[in-house]
């Protein structure tokens, strides 16, 4: 017959300070892990969620990102009418020529960052990037010094709010709209007229990349190969989703870092939990002897102590998880997003969000801590000989 769960619960509350400290230790480990994990999954989510699998990105061969690629007007004319490029209602090819420049922006607190400014043509850009929506104000008008800013940019930089005048490059730009894209990296960008941006940056070639929508049923690889094989221009095409997935790979090192941190902290917490439960076993030796004497089996004693340990871990997770979630909200409110990308010449503004998957990982960690931490003391408790245990007490 197993011991009732309430026995384990009551035992926890019998030594409040000790239980409280152990719960706190596990809670802190949970907070630290969740917070870090949340940050990195947010970074990955931002990068991976960008792009549409129906879209191809065309860059100059050998460019690893569109910020360093340069393309001519002729190249655009030559691939526009390729088979496989989707047509819109007016039978125009759905292809968005884009120019990337990364000028200085000034943060509200004075720091300087490189921000990705994307020069586009309004209609094809919004048609190809279907997830990008103007959520406030309106789209810019070409050749009128207007700009729309991503939601991550709007709150972060000086002059980047709707209706303000934004200074970057050689000129001043009127912010007429705010764009959102469901959390993807377009929200860290500023969109302006491609021609105006080219003039401002004095670029010799007008474009960096083309984004094209494939017609339904098109074989993406075949189209990409055809674009790559065009002898007139050294071009390279790949699905947009692959492109952003590659950008997200740099987050993998960070994952290794966080997993290492979580493991170290977890092992530390295991030691703490083991200690507490050993002390509990020692203090309750007589009690355990009594339980054995009145007929509870070794197994049920073992299970009961494991339950106690797991309960501690569960409490720690509840406390730590909610604390981490609150901290995540507080940090992103205070910092307005966390900037990433030291050497890539652009800042990705990542909204720190502690998501369900981060919490799940932390719950697993907490339960493993509880289980491993409880195992040795529980076995010692189960192994006590009733007569000796009673005599000791």
């Amino acid at each position, binding site marked *: 017959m197993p011991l009732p769960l309430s026995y384990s619960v009551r035992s926890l509350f019998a030594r409040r300070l000790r239980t409280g400290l152990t719960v706190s230790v596990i809670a802190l480990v949970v907070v630290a892990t969740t917070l870090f994990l949340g940050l990195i999954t947010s970074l990955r989510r931002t990068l991976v969620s960008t792009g549409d699998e129906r879209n191809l990105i065309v860059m100059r061969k050998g460019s*690893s990102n569109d910020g360093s690629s340069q393309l001519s007007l002729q190249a655009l004319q030559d691939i526009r009418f390729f088979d496989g490029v989707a047509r819109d209602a007016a039978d125009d090819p759905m292809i968005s020529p884009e120019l990337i420049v*990364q000028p200085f922006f000034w943060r509200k607190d004075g720091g300087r960052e490189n921000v990705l400014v994307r020069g586009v043509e309004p209609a094809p850009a919004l048609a190809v990037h279907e997830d990008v929506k103007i959520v406030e104000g309106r789209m810019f008008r070409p050749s009128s010094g207007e700009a729309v800013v991503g939601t991550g940019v709007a709150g972060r930089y000086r002059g980047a709010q709707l209706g303000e005048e934004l200074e970057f490059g050689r000129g001043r730009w009127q912010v007429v709209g705010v764009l959102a894209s469901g959390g993807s990296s377009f929200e860290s960008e500023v969109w302006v007229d491609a021609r105006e941006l080219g003039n*401002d940056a004095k670029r010799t070639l007008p474009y960096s990349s083309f984004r094209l929508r494939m017609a339904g049923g098109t074989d993406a690889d075949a189209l990409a190969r055809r674009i790559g094989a065009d002898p007139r221009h050294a071009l390279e095409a790949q699905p947009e989703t692959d492109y952003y997935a590659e950008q997200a790979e740099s987050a993998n090192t960070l994952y290794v870092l966080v997993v290492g*941190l979580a493991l170290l902290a977890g092992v530390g917490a295991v030691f703490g939990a083991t200690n507490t439960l050993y002390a509990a076993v020692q203090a309750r030796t007589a009690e355990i002897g009594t339980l054995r004497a009145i007929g509870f089996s070794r197994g049920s004693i073992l299970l009961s102590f494991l339950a106690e340990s797991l309960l501690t871990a569960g409490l720690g997770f509840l406390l730590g998880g909610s604390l981490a979630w609150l901290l995540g909200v507080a940090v992103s409110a205070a910092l307005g997003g966390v*900037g990433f*990308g030291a*050497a*890539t*010449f652009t800042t990705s503004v990542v909204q720190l969000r502690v998501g369900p998957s981060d919490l799940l990982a932390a719950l697993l960690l907490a339960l493993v801590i509880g289980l491993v931490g409880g195992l040795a003391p529980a076995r010692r408790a189960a192994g006590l000989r009733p007569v000796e245990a009673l005599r000791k007490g």
Partner: protein
Amino acid sequence: MIKFLPLVWKNLGRNKTRSVLTGAAIALAIVLVCMLRTLPAGLDYFLDQIAKNNRISVHNKAGIVYSMPYSYLQKVRTVPGVVEATSWTWFGGAFEEEKGVTFPNFAVNPETIGIVYEDLEIEPQALADFQRYRDAALVGGQTLKQYGWKVGDLVTLRSTVFPIELTVRIVGTLGNERDPRLWLQREYMTQALEAVGVQFDQIGTVWARVDDPARVNEVMRRIDEMFRNSEAETASETERSFFANFFTNLEGFVTIILIVTGLVALCIVFIAANTASMSVRERVGEIAVLKALGFRWRLLFALLVVEAALLSTVAGAAGVLLTAGLSKAISSAAGWNPQLGPLGAFIATGAILVQGLFLALFIGILSGVVPAWGASRRSVAATLREVF
């Protein structure tokens, strides 16, 4: 006091499992705190390395990716107070095509770079070769190690900015073993560009050495004034300020690292406090007996605190040693990370290790004080009545 140290040691050994577990937990937490601190410290270390306050950068006011006419280099060289100037242009060469740019590489002016970067102490022979051979390149120690290159090797870099690829010959080492940079001759690049029909007369940044640190501000003002209302207005700043600005977008990440570090430190306090309270609780009877025998409460209090502090410090020392080894292993295994930048150097400086040790000592004392105070101040009669 000293004569009681064996007693303290014996007390620690009474419940060996507990002491070892607590010590291990504290040691691990100290390792974590120290390793986390190496991240922001990497940035400081990086900035301190280039703390040369008489070298300035001149770049386009609009941004680093905005270029300037090549003629600006000559103009900067004529400014009074400028000893010598050189230009940097981002070549963006990729060695392994599928991985993109894995180390920063620039086209520079070999004639003047040795004077501007006198403090790098590039070997005279390497510098002379860099100037003499058109395809020569100087490579930082980190990149040399990462790819196992040595002087004399030929390396082909495909530019991600220009439509060319260049094969350079390594003629020497640049900077220290943490330096990821590669320098190649500007002339080599422009000639290759000409061959494919591109006239390139732009530069990224100009780096200039000023003769007297006191004149730096004046020189910077003069340069920026010279280019005011021109096609490319400039912004000059000291080298340190340039790199500090370059990495400002890491500040948010650093804040989070610091929060997590604080949490882990708090964690140690709880683990240590838990142990201290457990051992004191088990010994109340014994403490009462000692007091009844005439030992002063102050001495008993001190002994209990020293016990907690000793355990924590020994554990802290183990943690610090572990950190020193671990950081060495990681920093030699990890390369240049584009997301972490200089945060990813993982250098456990002496300061970090010493602070880690003091943190452990402090936490030990902190965790011991409350339970020790309670136990040593309890009335003997009350305790003994309870126990017997």
